[in-house]
């Protein structure tokens, strides 16, 4: 995490998170007040990134868009990790019929692209922030379930599990105190990397108009409206696009740094 890449990507992520959290304090503009006489303004001292077709400050909308993007993807992945770990741990630990059932469902959903699963779910639930969260969460559930299950099955036969059991530990104790904490590191890294994917997925759904509904800005919907005006005002699509790209790249680099910092591979071997 102390490599230049890790440092730089961490810094960018910190910037995005702070910008999202403190958006109302950082900008004098509102994300939804139109100012038509000042539409399509080029970047100036007043509007650092210019304005969109309704005269709204682009930087403001990108900051508020970060709120949508981040909260939707982080919440969705968080819930997905939590559910996936419980499901995968139960399947990997208890085995038997439960494991077979979970594996079949997971393998089935694994064979569909995440975007397809998400589209189907949004179609069922309806567009909007909630629909997007559920869609992303379910789309990545299989990944975390699989990973946790594999981890648990590897750790299950470790001597310290046998030792705990021979000293009277119950199933629940072994699961929550020994197995899950030991399985946590790789799942956290996977969650980190999946958050990057989730931001892209959220932007994609937003681009199709299935994500956060106007006037609430999201990076995806901003790019969608900008795509029609690509030649007239390229900034409208370029700046939110850059926000998505830089954030996802940063998350991936940070994830790599995290793998190195947590020393996951060596630690698993050492155990």
């Amino acid at each position: 995490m102390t490599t230049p890449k890790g440092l730089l990507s961490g810094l960018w992520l910190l910037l995005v998170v702070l910008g999202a959290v403190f958006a109302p304090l950082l900008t004098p503009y509102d994300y939804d007040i139109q100012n038509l006489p000042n539409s399509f303004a080029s970047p100036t001292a007043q509007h650092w990134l210019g304005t969109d077709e309704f005269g709204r400050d682009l930087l403001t909308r990108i900051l508020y868009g970060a709120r949508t993007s981040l909260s939707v993807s982080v919440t969705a992945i968080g819930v997905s990790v939590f559910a996936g770990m419980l499901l995968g741990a139960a399947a990997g630990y208890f085995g038997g019929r439960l494991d077979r059932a979970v594996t079949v469902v997971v393998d089935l959903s694994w064979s569909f692209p995440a975007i397809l699963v998400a589209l189907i779910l949004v179609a069922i639930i309806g567009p909007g922030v909630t629909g997007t969260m559920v869609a992303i969460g379910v789309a990545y559930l299989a990944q975390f379930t699989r990973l946790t299950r594999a981890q648990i099955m590897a750790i299950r036969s470790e001597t310290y599990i046998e030792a705990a059991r021979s000293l009277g530990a119950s199933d629940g104790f072994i699961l929550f105190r020994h197995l899950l904490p030991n399985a946590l590191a790789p799942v956290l890294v996977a969650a980190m990397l999946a958050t990057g994917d989730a931001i892209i997925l959220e932007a994609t759904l937003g681009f199709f108009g299935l994500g956060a509904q106007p006037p609430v800005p999201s990076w995806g919907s901003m790019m969608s409206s900008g795509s029609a005006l690509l030649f007239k005002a390229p900034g409208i699509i370029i700046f939110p696009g850059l926000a998505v790209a830089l954030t996802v790249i940063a998350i991936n680099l940070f994830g790599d740094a995290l793998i190195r910092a947590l020393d996951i591979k060596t630690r698993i071997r050492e155990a």
Partner: protein
Amino acid sequence: MLLSVSNLSVRIGSVEPLSNISFALDRGEILGLVGESGSGKSLTALAVTGLLPLIGGRISAGEVVFDGTDLVPLPEARLRSYRGRRIGFVTQNPMTALDPVQRIGGQVDVVSRLHLGLAPSAARARTVELLTSLRIPEAAAICDAYPHQLSGGMKQRIVIAMALAGEPDLIIADEPTTALDVTVQAQIIHILGELVRERGLGLVLITHDMGVVAQVCDRVAVLYAGRLAETRDAAALFAAPAHPYTAALIDCIPRDGMAPGSLSGIPGTVPSVLTYPAGCRFHPRCASATAECATQTPRNTPLPGAAACLPSSAGAANG
């Protein structure tokens, strides 16, 4: 008797890797459970602690009477209340017997919190006391360390501390020194011996090292290929081994004044459970085997002092 195992047989699927094992020990005694790898020592330990279902096995016959109660018919929930509380277990490899992501103190504390109902602070105080009594320096600081920061011998002491934390009456130690340096081995064996004498515990010491047995054990049970070869007092066993296998194991201990290269091994290997020979299972490797050894199964519930061996029991009858 604290622990009395009689005619214990274990089945895993269609095979019977352990047949008719009997041994006993009392408080303040150390029983050495001896045999080469694959002779069924660890399986016996699992059977006594009721952990056979973990590897898909079950006790098909016999009794495991611990402190007056037969453990064999007990349900898992009752067995769990014995594990750690009445019977402590020291696992084979100290390098992997501790959870790598938890601090040492917490791992020991939890045993006395679970079994003795101690509050966290009381449990920690007890842990420090326990570690100190196992001659771990700066026990309080060690409690905050992670397993990978400790040496093998230190980890084995922690594992022993965990086994002791529930104040058990019996400790089963499965090859507690195999993974350690020779110098550390002696320390650990010494510590275990002291615990037994000072606290009046019973100790089942599983090992393949006859030298260790000679040092500390009061009684010995020799296993070969899932059967009991002989069981008796250690002094008598070393003075006059009744079973050729026991004699061969004793011959594997290096002695003073041995000519270089004269240390003998036992030719061949322990047969697997699928290829157990007919008759006496040791006969293909036995120097004193006779023709009937290949066909006739020796009496496999030897009286204390007798051996499951046709020629030597015939000799005893004649003599």
